């Protein structure tokens, strides 16, 4: 165990020394990897920021029921048990709030920027209504059930129109799913790019160190001993590329957030893009290092087999 650790320590030291000695080419290769990794990292950052937004929206979808304008108040209030019965039938917990037309107008006047225009209408044009806030819809995918409830509610006597806000939640959920799948495909493609870049870098390293490899073999080095520094080199390249990509993405968030904050304020939102949480960032760095390791593994095996065939 001690010997094994010592050999890994030596290999790591050799890798770090080599990287330091050829800092220029190592840095350039890390930048190439960073370019390939930055796009999926940015995508993950975006998705990670959108996830809670979409989740929050999906938690309490709203259904607004607007009654016919001439519905008597007593009859309007009588609808509530029927509404609750339908909700119970679909096992949906919900808060049901009756909104009288006077209250609706007052709210509109308070929120609207055109109180004068509303005053000119003379009479209140708004009907009585209900606002239903459905609970237990934590997943956007469950929005399909809301449509069924809405159909039933719309058929109740006295209901003029019905407005469901789940449609755009569904669209957002679908969009996020498309983005997620697209991002996975993009990450796979660019992961291949990382492997290819590391493969080629290590191939060149093996060629450069051919004499050392041959001499090492002649003095009793095992293949594992020879391969180890190259594996570390590949992993280090992947890790450094990942760190550079992560830093670039995080730096890019600053100017983006300046614009997003202004835009979000228009919708009374405090939304802004945040850097990836540390565990996820570390996971992405580990994946980048693993990709580098894979590239090195494929390259070294192939190159050493070639050297062996040449009779070293």
């Amino acid at each position, binding site marked *: 165990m001690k*010997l094994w650790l*010592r*050999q890994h320590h*030596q290999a790591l030291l050799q890798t770090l020394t080599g990287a330091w000695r050829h800092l220029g080419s190592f840095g350039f290769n890390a930048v190439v990897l960073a370019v390939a990794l930055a796009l999926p990292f940015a995508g993950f950052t975006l998705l990670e920021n959108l996830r809670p937004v979409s989740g929050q929206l999906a938690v309490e979808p709203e259904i607004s029921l607007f009654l016919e304008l001439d519905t008597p108040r007593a009859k309007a209030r009588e609808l509530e048990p029927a509404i609750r019965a339908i909700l119970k039938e679909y096992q949906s917990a919900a808060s049901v709030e009756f909104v009288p037309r006077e209250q609706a107008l007052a709210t509109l006047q308070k929120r609207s920027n055109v109180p004068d225009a509303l005053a000119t209408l003379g009479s209140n044009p708004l009907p009585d209504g209900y606002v239903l806030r459905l609970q237990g819809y934590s997943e956007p995918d469950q929005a399909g059930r809301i449509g069924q409830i809405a159909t039933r509610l719309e058929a109740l006597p006295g209901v003029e129109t019905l407005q469901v806000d789940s449609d755009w939640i569904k669209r957002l959920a679908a969009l996020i799913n498309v983005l997620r799948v697209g991002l996975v495909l993009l990450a796979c493609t660019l992961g291949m790019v990382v492997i290819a870049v590391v493969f080629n870098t290590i191939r060149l390293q093996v060629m450069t160190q051919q*004499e*050392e490899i*041959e*001499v*090492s*073999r*002649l*003095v*009793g*080095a*095992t*293949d594992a*001993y020879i391969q180890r520094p190259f594996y570390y080199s590949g992993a280090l390249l992947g890790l450094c590329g990942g760190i550079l990509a992560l830093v670039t993405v995080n730096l890019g968030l600053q100017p983006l957030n300046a614009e997003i904050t202004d835009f979000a304020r228009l919708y009374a939102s405090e939304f802004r893009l945040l850097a990836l949480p540390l565990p996820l960032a570390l996971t992405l760095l580990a994946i980048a290092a693993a990709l580098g390791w894979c590239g090195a593994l494929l390259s070294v095996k192939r190159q050493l087999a070639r050297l*062996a065939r040449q*009779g070293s």
Partner: protein
Amino acid sequence: MIDFQQVSKTYPGSIRALSNINLSIGKGELVFLAGRSGAGKSTLLKLSAGIERPSSGALLVNGQDLGRIKAATLPYLRRRLGLIFQQQRLLQDRDLLANVMLPLLVTGSSRQEAEKRARAALDKVGLLDRARNLPQSLSGGEQQRIAIARAIVHRPQIILADEPTANLDRESANLVLETLKAFHGVGVTCLISTHDEHFLDSATRVVWLARGEIAESWRRMDAETGSPA
């Protein structure tokens, strides 16, 4: 120690480098392989080091059949050998100390231990004061002595030297040869190829190769005891 039994080696293109070699080298022997260029000396040494595999016959080194040895086992056999090449094959971007430390590091010695033993080996070949120099700053003879230091630093049981005195002036060649003989003196088996007949005068056993076959083999006997000198 090294046992060739009907060993032949044929390269692609039906180039026969060695034919039916029968040769047995015992522990602690110093054997010179002599012969002209192309006689098969280097091939015989390469076979002994496991660099090449015999085309037919059996070759036993330390009891292991090199014709059948697994690739994964070969490094462990080589750790018992000290190899010296005509072109020294020193790593030009490493100082002499690092070059000599290499066989110890590949076997898992700590850097401190490797450095200590490498310095001792450099001392034995008289080049300790040049430990931090790069190989290109040394003469051919000095580089060959560094190659010897690298070959003996891990205390091998067998030294295989392929034309170690080629391209050296007489003085340097004598020095290299004396260094090798010193290791033979402490019980290391040495198989040295040379085409320089000058060195054979003091040899105790010489194997002559010609066109891939053993043309002649003689052993100097001790006049008093009647045993090999």
